[in-house]
């Protein structure tokens, strides 16, 4: 991947991600998230993972974001004052999150995983739908079946908690 392209995209992604956290209006936060997710999709494209890029756009930037926006509009959230939590707690949470991020970067760097495996040649047929399907129906067949059960449970739970008749 061209370093210049990477730096440009990475900067834009970080700016969009900051927008999610810093925007005062929830709608703007959500829209910044759409932008961030699109840039993430571009990264997948640059890594030769076209299918994952497409899924990223369809599932996250599409379906999930529509849900977010829908909920925000449904609840009619206005610009909320920033002092949601006490300043001390916010500072503590921010510090912990930053430390966590730094630790992750440090460990990932030290592990050498970024140099050793990231730059390897792309195997033949990588990211083809056929290969993903093969994995799904062989190695991860049980997980695949179990997911259907998980979705069933989630549907029942949602209905139980949301249906109108109380008694």
């Amino acid at each position, binding site marked *: 991947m061209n370093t210049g392209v990477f730096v440009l995209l990475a900067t834009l992604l970080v700016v969009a991600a900051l927008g999610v956290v810093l925007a005062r209006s929830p709608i703007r936060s959500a829209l910044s998230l759409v932008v961030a997710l699109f840039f993430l999709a571009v990264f997948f494209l640059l890594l030769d993972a076209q299918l994952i890029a497409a899924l990223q756009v369809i599932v996250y930037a599409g379906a999930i974001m529509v849900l977010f926006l829908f909920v925000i509009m449904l609840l009619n959230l206005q610009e909320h004052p920033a002092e949601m939590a006490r300043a001390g707690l916010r500072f503590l949470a921010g510090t912990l999150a930053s430390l966590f991020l730094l630790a992750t970067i440090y460990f990932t760097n030290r*592990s050498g995983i970024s140099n050793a495996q990231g730059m390897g040649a792309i195997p033949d047929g990588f990211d083809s739908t056929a290969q993903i399907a093969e994995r799904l129906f062989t190695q991860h067949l049980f*997980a695949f079946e179990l997911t259907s059960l998980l979705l069933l449970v989630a549907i029942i739970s949602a*209905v139980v908690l949301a249906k109108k008749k109380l008694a």
Partner: protein
Amino acid sequence: MLYRMINPPEISWIAILPVLLLSATAMLTMVADLWTDGPDREGLGWIGLVGLMATAIAAVALWNTKLTSFAGAVVVDRYGLFFTLLFCVAAGLTLLMSMSYLEQTDIRTGDYYSLILFSTVGMVVMATAADLIVVFLGLEVMSIAAYALAGIWRSQVRSNEAALKYFLLGAFATGFLLFGIALLYGVAGTTTLTGIAQTASGATAEQRTLLIAGMALMIVGFGFKVAAVPFHAWAPDVYEGAPTSVTALMAVGVKSAAFAAFARIFMHTLAVMSPDWSAVLWVLAVLTMTVGNVTALLQRNIKRMLAYSSIAHAGYLLVGMVAGGELGGSAILFYLLAYTLMTLGAFSVVIALGRRGQPNENLEDYAGAGFRSPFLGMAMSIFMLSLAGIPPFGGFVGKFYIFSAAVKSGYIGLTVIGVMNSLISVYYYVGVLVRMYMTDGGVEITQPSSRPYLFATLVVAVAGTIALGLFPSTLFEVARQSFLALG
């Protein structure tokens, strides 16, 4: 070539028989709900009980086998089967107490029973999973059903609050677990436990750092599910707000399932890394025992008190994990069995004291209860003494095994702290008995013998707690064989 055939992996249907039976029962209950109405749906509970019985029989029949299925994603060994049986007992007793309890609530939906069974399916999957993705999916099946169950008493504000709190914090903790799984996958290139074990045993220094980061994140995720301090903040509110029978299932089933996966991954798959994780768990164990027991002293609501007590018991179980080895592992299994029976029993007594529109969950309500209902008094005494770890009950033997495992592994300091905590806990457990037998006042009690299902639950729990205390060696041998099946 435009297409190619995918060869499905070899599937051993026998191996997943318990999961299949249980899922089928859960779905049957869900469908049968369409044909039942009326205020109480005991019939659904009976369907569930029969299904659990069938599952338990299947698990016993498989006892002498060790099977893997679905390309190694599921492993059915004695360890998994031990937990399958444990979950059948826990879910069975929960269903039984629910059949009495639902009358005194406004819960009028048959989905209650199917959600309990679905949650149990998730627990069984967690205990028999040999792949981190399957562990995660099992955890989610179990948890999502539990979130909904916590909020199923919709006309109660505190039930709504419990569901929301549990859901938000639970989802947050799941994120940590997933992040940890992702890091382990990054190191090993596979999510199967065997593959990860191979990588861990020959790990280079670089791989070790990443493994440690992954383990740390997984400890946070599992620590939340077992309610270990400092990831316990949700437990008291959720335990207090959820319907009592659901609280019982959460305290017993969810915790055991989390320990089943936790112990399989850490004590078996990542056993070579134990010098790295046992120090962390040492600290967690001390914090969990101490904070749990000391805070329990201050509670006035029995469900909150039992919540802190269940936190403290998670601490004792962590001592078993720190101790490690054959003895520590078997002690955890035995302890979970004893803990299941005595905790379910204690929650049944809480239900027995409540009435419609009058939950009677304050400790003052227990005044004089021992005389108004001698059976309840006797049952509660046995559960409280067993929880406190006083002989001759199951809880004492469990603690004895845990602490002797810790001593054998050389953790003298940890054992001393554990025993001291155990002494603190005697104060609040016996405090309940003092109220029941030595103070006046209290509330009117419906005799448990007039509520057959609740009575049956109490009888089973009492009998189990005593049997574990009097004849521990047989069951400890079963627990030992189960743990050894891992290796």
